[in-house]
């Protein structure tokens, strides 16, 4: 009897998370419907721009979606090579102790509130961009990418480091017995073997990057125009944070914001699912070796 009660309790508790996700998804879907039916493809009008309060209101979220993807790709593109190299270095070129202490600091980096990153981004990155690129205002897609890439480093380093550790523990003895150098074993064994682990790290970092709100908002300028590397832009989460509180409930304006978020949620679900499957496959592969 008691066992059953515990079982039910545990089952209901563990079902809460997926239930919350489904409730949110259904809510966003429901709120996005008026925009989907009322605007249809006008939501992705490449001629239009996000101007819900213009003389002739237009609700194109195309530029905003493009900016979100652009910024996330840029951030992952900067962070992935740096994080990957750092993970290899920590596993092959330093002592255990140093590596462990460094990794602890890397994890601390993940605990810094994102508003702090945004703030530092504004004072350091944006200001220096104005100086270096001779821009009249440093708020730009690139500035957001740089700030975000720093925020992604801990995710990439710790995820990738984990795969390297696993691969290393399998092959280290063999490598040592063959007497091959660390460089050779990294290049010819570890990197090819951890391909999937690297992909999983990159994909989950991309998910993290595309949903970051406040740090990006503070350095990107929030102008809903077509994204250019040194131009301003606006991301989906930035748009939502700026406008959802003022948007009249039930209006086309609010609904279009929900539509943008629905697209992001669905895309992220697919991306994160891919990352999950990759990682699971990876684990079973290690089991086989």
């Amino acid at each position, binding site marked *: 009897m008691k066992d059953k009660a515990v079982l039910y309790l545990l089952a209901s508790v563990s079902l809460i998370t997926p239930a919350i996700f489904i409730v949110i998804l259904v809510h966003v879907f429901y709120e996005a419907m008026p925009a989907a039916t009322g605007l249809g493809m006008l939501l992705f009008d490449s001629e239009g721009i996000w101007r819900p309060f213009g003389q002739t209101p237009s609700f194109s979220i195309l530029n905003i979606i493009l900016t979100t993807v652009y910024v996330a790709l840029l951030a992952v593109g900067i962070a992935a090579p740096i994080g990957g190299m750092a993970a290899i270095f920590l596993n092959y070129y330093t002592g255990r102790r140093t590596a462990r202490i460094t990794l602890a600091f890397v994890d601390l980096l993940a605990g810094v509130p994102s*508003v702090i990153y945004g703030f530092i981004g504004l004072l350091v990155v944006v200001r220096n961009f104005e100086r270096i690129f001779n821009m*009249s205002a440093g708020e730009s897609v690139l500035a957001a990418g740089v700030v975000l890439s720093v925020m992604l480093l801990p995710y990439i380093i710790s995820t990738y480091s984990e795969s390297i550790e696993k691969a290393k523990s399998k092959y280290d003895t063999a490598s040592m017995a063959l007497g091959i150098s660390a460089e050779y074993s990294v290049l010819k064994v570890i990197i090819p073997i951890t391909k999937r682990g690297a992909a999983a790290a990159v994909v989950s970092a991309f998910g993290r990057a595309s949903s970051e709100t406040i740090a990006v908002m*503070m350095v990107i300028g929030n102008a809903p125009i077509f994204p250019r590397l040194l131009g301003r832009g606006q991301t989906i989460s930035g748009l939502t*944070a*700026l406008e959802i509180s003022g*948007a009249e409930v039930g209006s086309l304006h609010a609904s279009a914001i929900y539509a943008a978020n629905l697209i992001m949620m669905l895309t992220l679900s697919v991306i994160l699912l891919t990352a999950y499957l990759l990682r699971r496959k990876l684990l079973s592969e290690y089991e086989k070796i």
Partner: protein
Amino acid sequence: MRKNAQKLPAILCAAMIMTAMIGCAGQSAAPPPAPGTQVPQQPAEQATIIEPTQILFDGSSTLAPVIATIAAELEEQSDQPIEVFVSSGGSGQGVSAIIDQTANFGMLAREARDSEKEQIPDFQEYLVGIDALTVSINPENPLAAMRDGLTTEEIVRIFSGEYATWQDFDPALPGEEIVVVVRDIGGGAHEVFQTNIMGDVEVRADAIQAPSMGALVSRIIENRNAIGYASFGVSYQSRQDLAFMEIDGVEPTIENILNGSYLIQRPLILIRSGQPTQAEQYFLDAIFSDLGQSIIDEIGFIPIS
């Protein structure tokens, strides 16, 4: 509408944290202590015992945080059994809430129209404060030394992007891009600016939308090409680091705002139908007390008394 009301506290918190953070960046900006932060005065004698009452406010999201903050303060300081509920969805909703009798007070961030007054029996209104915006530039901008102010028409041309660089505005100025900084285009602050200055003309699409008033002011302080508007309260705290622009020759001072000659402003009013009950009067008194007026001042609006 209720959804909005629930989101509001979280968003406000975020906004306040951001303002505080960015405020720190304002280099030498040393805000003067707000006048009302000392011992707040009790709005009425505690002796009057009021029936347990719920007071409902509905309307402008600009005024909502003011009423919510005053209500929260009052709840801590007074033992009168008054519960205040605030929901927001725009001034229009404030009017319709009174017409439909779904709220005791409507919150408006504009004058009530005559057509609206006609629909409300025994129309009452209370001017709570004034929301005004200053237009300012970076003091290092040579324009600050050349001119004391701008005309409405010049501001429209700058904010719409008709002048792309400062040189376009005046050949003596550097040929750098004019960096226009605004608050979110859908928000209340921008609405004042749009109605009173821009009219039908739209702000340039690549204008920077600052996530808070504090962020907006700090962008103007840090960027010498920037021009933007900021709420009177926030910009006045950083007045040493900003160059305020006169609008059509009128300086943004409390006096000019109160006498109506300064253009970029709007009234914050409460409306209701019929005379207030004892509990409602008690709350109204709290709004007009030193405590209430200092809260209005802290939030960045201009108190009436």
